[in-house]
């Protein structure tokens, strides 16, 4: 198990270097001058050139990449071109907000999805099953930004039950409950699609497993259907479900860009979008590096949890 873990961790390094290089290349090859965008139309050509030199943007691209990556390794993620602020604290605080939103949504999606999937499998070919299937199709098909606006309108504007935007109340605010209160709508909007997918995967995986001989054996021993499903079937059905949950993390981060925009959630998604529009290389590169690192780390955790759930996958 230890050898497996070490191998997996070592594999992360080339992945991260590859990601940073690709992002760096894409950002620098895209047309548009960050200095022109930052300084606005009133800046003279002389000022533009001076600032390009100050920011090191006049150096060859490979030199810029090596200089950036070596500074990152030394803990200096640079300053944002547009915001003139240190990248690391800014990106980390924004990333923490996105992680809170994303993991809450993934948790809700997993809980709801697995529950609904088991219920659908348990009540297969009944009206309940059909209802869950219908809801899953709706949840999967509904665009995040549209669903978010609808939730915002109904629960925020019409009913006034929940805040329409932000992470804390405008005046005062800031406690844990205040944040939970503000999390409900964005989490619901973001969780809908992964929940639907997890529910579908749980249902089909469960249905597949319950065809197996050992389930028939369990039943023939006189175990209740509940014990058969939850104890014997679910654990064996769990590997594909875990894979889907792990993969949904990527979706949750991508989808959070829309949800953050609609609910003014101060996450890294908004920061990246603005960073791309302003060609703010350090912000975009820093954010992607952080997201990619956490993504590969989560994938590692998923793989490790496979090994836990299914001992034959421990490779060693």
């Amino acid at each position, binding site marked *: 198990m230890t050898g497996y873990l070490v191998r997996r961790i070592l594999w992360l390094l080339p992945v991260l270097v590859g990601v940073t290089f690709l992002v760096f290349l894409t950002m620098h090859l*895209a*047309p*548009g*001058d*960050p200095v*022109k*965008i*930052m*300084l*606005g*139309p*009133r*800046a*003279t*050509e*002389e*000022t533009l050139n001076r*600032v390009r030199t*100050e920011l090191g943007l006049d150096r060859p691209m490979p030199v810029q990449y090596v200089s950036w990556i070596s500074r990152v390794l030394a803990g200096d993620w640079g*300053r944002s071109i*547009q*915001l*003139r*602020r*240190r990248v690391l604290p*800014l990106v980390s*605080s*924004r990333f923490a*907000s996105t992680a809170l939103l994303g993991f809450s949504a993934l948790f809700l999606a997993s809980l709801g999805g697995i529950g609904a999937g088991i219920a659908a499998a348990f009540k297969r070919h009944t009206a309940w099953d059909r209802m869950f299937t219908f809801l899953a199709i709706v949840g999967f098909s509904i665009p995040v930004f549209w669903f978010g*606006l609808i939730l*915002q*309108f109904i629960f*925020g*504007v019409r009913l*006034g039950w929940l*805040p*329409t*935007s*932000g*992470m*804390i*109340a*405008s*005046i*005062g605010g800031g406690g844990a409950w205040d944040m939970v*209160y503000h999390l409900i709508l964005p989490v619901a909007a973001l969780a809908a699609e992964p929940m639907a997918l997890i529910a579908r995967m749980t249902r089909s995986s469960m249905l597949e497993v319950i065809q197996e001989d050992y389930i028939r054996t369990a039943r023939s021993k006189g175990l209740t259907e509940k014990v058969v499903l939850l104890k014997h079937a679910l654990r064996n059905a769990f590997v594909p479900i875990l894979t889907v949950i792990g993969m949904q993390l990527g979706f949750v981060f991508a989808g959070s860009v829309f949800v953050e*925009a*609609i*609910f*003014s*959630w*101060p*996450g890294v998604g*908004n*920061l990246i979008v*603005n960073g791309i*529009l*302003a*060609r703010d290389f350090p912000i975009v590169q820093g954010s992607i590096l952080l997201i990619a690192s956490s993504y590969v780390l989560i994938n590692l955790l998923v793989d490790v949890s496979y090994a836990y759930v299914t001992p034959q996958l421990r490779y060693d």
Partner: protein
Amino acid sequence: MCKRCTVLSICLMLLVGLTGTCLAAGTLVVALEAEPTSLDPHQLTDYNSVRAAAALFETLTKFRPGTTEIMPGLAESWVMSEDGLKYTFYLRQGVLFHDGTAFTADDVRFNFERQTDPNHPYYDTGVFGYAEFTLGMIDSIEVVDDYTLVFDLKYTFPPFLRNLAMASAAFVSPESLEQYGADIVIHPVGTGPFQFREWEPGVRVVLDRNVTYWGEPATLDTLIFRPIINPQSRLAALEAGEVDFMVNPPPDDVVRLQNDPRFNVEAELGQHTWWIVLNCQVEPFDNKLVRQAVHYAVDKEAIVDGILRGTGEVAVNALPPSVWSYTEDLKIYDYNPQMARDLLATAGYPDGFEVDFWVPESGSGMQQPVEMATAIQAYLAAVGVTANISTWEWGTYLDKVFGPPANELPAMHEMSWIMDNGDPDNFLYILLSGEQWPLDGFNEAFYQNEEVDRLLREARIELDATTRETLYIEAQQLIAEDSPWIWVDHAYETFVMREGIQGFVFQPTQGILRFERVVFE
């Protein structure tokens, strides 16, 4: 009702009051269109930053609220030499920065030289895109005593006093710069009626009333700016009572909000113009008649009503109407497709022609660029002109249109401009003088009329206001005759606020929002 039930009901009511729409006394929550990028006044280039920073900082001169007239700010008075090259300023005494240090003449020199002198110890604490534009005419600054200083200018520059009222001429506490260095962008310390409390990135910027303010103190205790990028979400926050004031609602909702008794809608004309640049150096727009023809071909009123939903005013002149010297005594291009066809025929294009038309997908001040371009394309097609639209992302677009020579630019492209200092020089000279072709300036139409150039040049150095006005009016008339652009509209800045909010003032220069005198009815 039992006693316990009564207590429970009161608690519930209090809870609803606390979590609902109740407004704490003296606190105003403003929803901005985006998060400020910085709160260092010397580094601001976008509206949202200027709006959040405006209450924190002050300048030597300032604009009379709601107008483009100049009045004393941190300078009580000033004297200009007869040749217009020397200005002596007498500063207000007893002004304190928010950190408690006194504001003196040395601080003026410190702040200006920080932006213009590469040898200044704090020059490397920022990037100053407006410095050359705002302060570039200053040759030297002499501090006579703590409250007197003299500016020597390199050349006569009548809008100088207006430039001194702009954000980049505002004063940051030198001690705070020493303390925070480049992080001054998130630790603003000025002399304004509000002082900075906190900035939670992506969440809010909180300002408190400055209790040591030298002038009349602000009426509000606290002023909070919240960035809500999505216009629909901004409106939802207002309707749910989470914010009290919002900037620019979705155009489709404006009429509904005007009829909603819970809100007041104010539409104010900024100093903005939206236009199509006609490339005057290449065929077919090197011919004045063709430029006039396409100008007549576009139904501006229909675009303003149908696409902009009345959030703009039809432009009859390139210059924004709120700028002094603005005139409507010039050639007016009312929608007239027949006139357009006749002019095209006279110019030798009876069957029209085909041109390229570049359009950004979005952009500061660009309103609804793609929809507007599509409408204009259809109007031009009706008179036989085929305009082939190419759209570009804003950053790419700026790169493509600012800089290349005339022969590398398309025949038509979209542009807009928001003026800074309220002086016609800030618009007519830099955008339409033949001396301001890129890269010297922003005359992207590569328009040149020697008479216009002479008038604009003379007006730049003329010290007599009446003579300047005459020169600018004449220039506007000649420009309208030449039609180097199709000027389409001047955008309104629309503000929606809760009913009962009084005392808000819109400052057309730099689009500043003034909340110092806001009271709740």
